[in-house]
């Protein structure tokens, strides 16, 4: 059975139609990459799946783990296991990273009828995860994303993902802004999360992430639709030729 099944998805952002009948299916265990020109609708896809206000789905259907995703409110989608790593992670002044993640994890645990973790248990658990990503305690105490460098923000998104252990992770340009070492660390983090019951959807502009995070499928999103799908070699092909073929066709 598929984990995520998007059928003929149409979405508008402020009157403007951005997604124009998008089809995509992810099975558990798979890694898919989406590439495509600026403004094609990649982030819009992520937001529409996550249920952001202002991203109005006007047609089509999305089934997530057997349930109607579009019926759920944003926090429900998250608690059911959908995680979006933001292209532009948001700063929350005054809220320590630890506090933020504790609220997030405990919300999920409550949703699934599990005991909440107390402060001490959580800090232990979080430290372990942070260490894997080369993040120290000082960074966890700092307010969420405030004053973080571009790369640190992306690392922080990866940390959140590994703490929340989603069923489906949508990574929106998590590789952009990373230096070569950080790219490696983040990719390792994502790879650790790969498992037969999880799927990952990576939105990226560059082949280099895909070197570490070898995808099972690569799709081209242009003008609000998936216009081509293939295996990892498609990414190499795009790197060489660009999107001219798809843009002119659109």
């Amino acid at each position, binding site marked *: 059975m598929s984990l995520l099944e998007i059928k003929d998805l149409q979405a508008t952002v402020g009157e403007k139609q951005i997604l124009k009948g998008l089809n995509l299916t992810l099975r558990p265990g798979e890694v898919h990459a989406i590439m495509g020109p600026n403004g094609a609708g990649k982030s819009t896809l992520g937001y529409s799946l996550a249920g952001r206000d202002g991203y109005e789905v006007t047609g089509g259907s999305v089934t997530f783990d057997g349930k109607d995703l579009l019926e759920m409110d*944003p926090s429900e989608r*998250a608690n059911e296991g959908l*995680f979006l790593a933001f292209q532009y992670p*948001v700063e929350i002044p*005054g809220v320590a990273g630890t506090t933020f993640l504790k*609220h*997030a994890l405990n*919300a999920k645990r409550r949703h699934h009828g599990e005991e909440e973790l107390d402060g001490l248990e959580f800090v232990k658990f979080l430290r372990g995860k942070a260490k894997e990503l080369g993040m120290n305690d000082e960074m966890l105490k700092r*307010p969420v994303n405030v004053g973080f460098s571009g790369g640190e923000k992306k690392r922080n998104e990866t940390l959140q993902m590994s703490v929340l252990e989603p069923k489906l992770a949508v990574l929106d340009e998590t590789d952009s802004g990373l230096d070569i070492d950080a790219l490696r660390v983040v990719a390792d983090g994502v790879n650790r999360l790969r498992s037969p019951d999880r799927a990952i959807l990576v939105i990226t502009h560059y082949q280099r992430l895909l070197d570490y995070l070898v995808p099972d499928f690569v799709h081209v999103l242009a003008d609000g639709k998936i216009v081509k799908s293939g295996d990892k070699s498609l990414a190499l092909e795009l790197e060489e030729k660009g999107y001219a073929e798809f843009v002119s066709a659109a």
Partner: protein
Amino acid sequence: MAATTETIEQVKELGGGDKYKHGFVTDIEMEFAPKGLNEDIVRFISAKKEEPEWLLEWRLKAFERWKTMPEPDWAKLDVPPIDYNDIYYFAAPKRDEDKPQSLDEVDPKLLETYAKLGIPLKEQEVLAGVAGAPTVAVDAVFDSVSVATTYRKTLEEKGIIFCSISEAVHTHPELVKKYLGSVVPYSDNKHACLNSAVFTDGSFVYIPKGVRCPMELSTYFRINAENTGQFERTLIVADEGSYVSYLEGCTAPQRDENQLHAAVVELVTLDDAEIKYSTVQNWYPGDEEGRGGIYNFVTKRGACRGRNSKISWTQVETGSAITWKYPSCILQGDNSVGEFYSVAITNNRQQADTGTKMIHLGKNTRSKIISKGISAGRSQQTYRGLVRMSPKAESARNYTQCDSLLIGDQCGAHTTPYIESRNASAKVEHEATTSKISEDQLFYCLQRGMSEEDAVSLIVNGFCKEVMQTLPMEFAVEAQKLIGISLEGSVG
């Protein structure tokens, strides 16, 4: 119930006889005055309290003055006319049959809030004024009698006086006479005038020279009869080189049918002394349409009389329908320090006009103002602050930071700073920001699984962090929850 009653009985016995030695119980046989305000009522109150002549005279002067004084009208508040003759000034406690007979008869909304704050059932009964419940949440603090004993003994050993003000009038008349009205004169403003004329009780604290009070003093510890919260009078004196931290109020909304509250708080620090005064105010704010709710007209002022002394106010104001409150510092002693940390939250139809005055008189005096105002619903909130550098305030400094956060687009936030500098070497710095709770932040939290309410609470707590950090630990955790609860229903 039995356990609570027992605790109270035991606590009473500790003092020997029916009076708790440090004056924690004000157990006079009450007769009660009818509604209305006139000279007789003032005399009655004073007589009931067997007050000395000077205090009666003072009350009467205050009352005379009150009659001629106009209501303050400069605040950005819409205050309905108050019928002062429709108020009990020395009221009978409610008879048990008039009280809710059990929690089942209490407003479910109130109970919901208690549950969210994690308040135990027994204490809920106290707060909601259920028949048969004790008049104070003794067991909330005194979880065992031995704690109470230790507490009382420790204060006694250090020579600290902590009792009700009506008791202090008898046991320490020289101190009360010296300091009462010395910071907030009875003629200060209409509300302070009223309080001076009819105050029924409040706290008195004196910390002797060189003593560091080893625990937070809290109004919670003081056993009050009902209905004294309305015109409360507090006086705290920190003698040379002493320190005390005082907590007022509690996070749980108490049921109270008195609409008008006019409290006065006076603080005095002598050389090298420090008072830290923290308040959490969560009086009934009225319903969504603004019906009911407390009018909270408070005069709070501290005088740093001594050199190197310090007064620090922290307030978390979430309740009341109308708030009129400006905890202030008169920085008289050279090198003295005044601080004001404030979080004010208004939701629905609440109105708040709040801020501070820092009056720099001495050399090298310093003040710091951090104000965080959060407005939601259709509420209106004003920060009003005065910083005055007098001609002698050589090298004085003030730093003011005033941040407003708006939730939704039907509320109002206003900032009215007044700066008067008559000393060229004094420096005043003022920063102000106004922002909206951002859709980005909200969505980010939701995407991480948090509910909308949890997200708002988290973001707002982050916004207020600088102020919340100054709260004593006991208060901080509950106050954080309270912020979330006060803003429920403000988004979406």
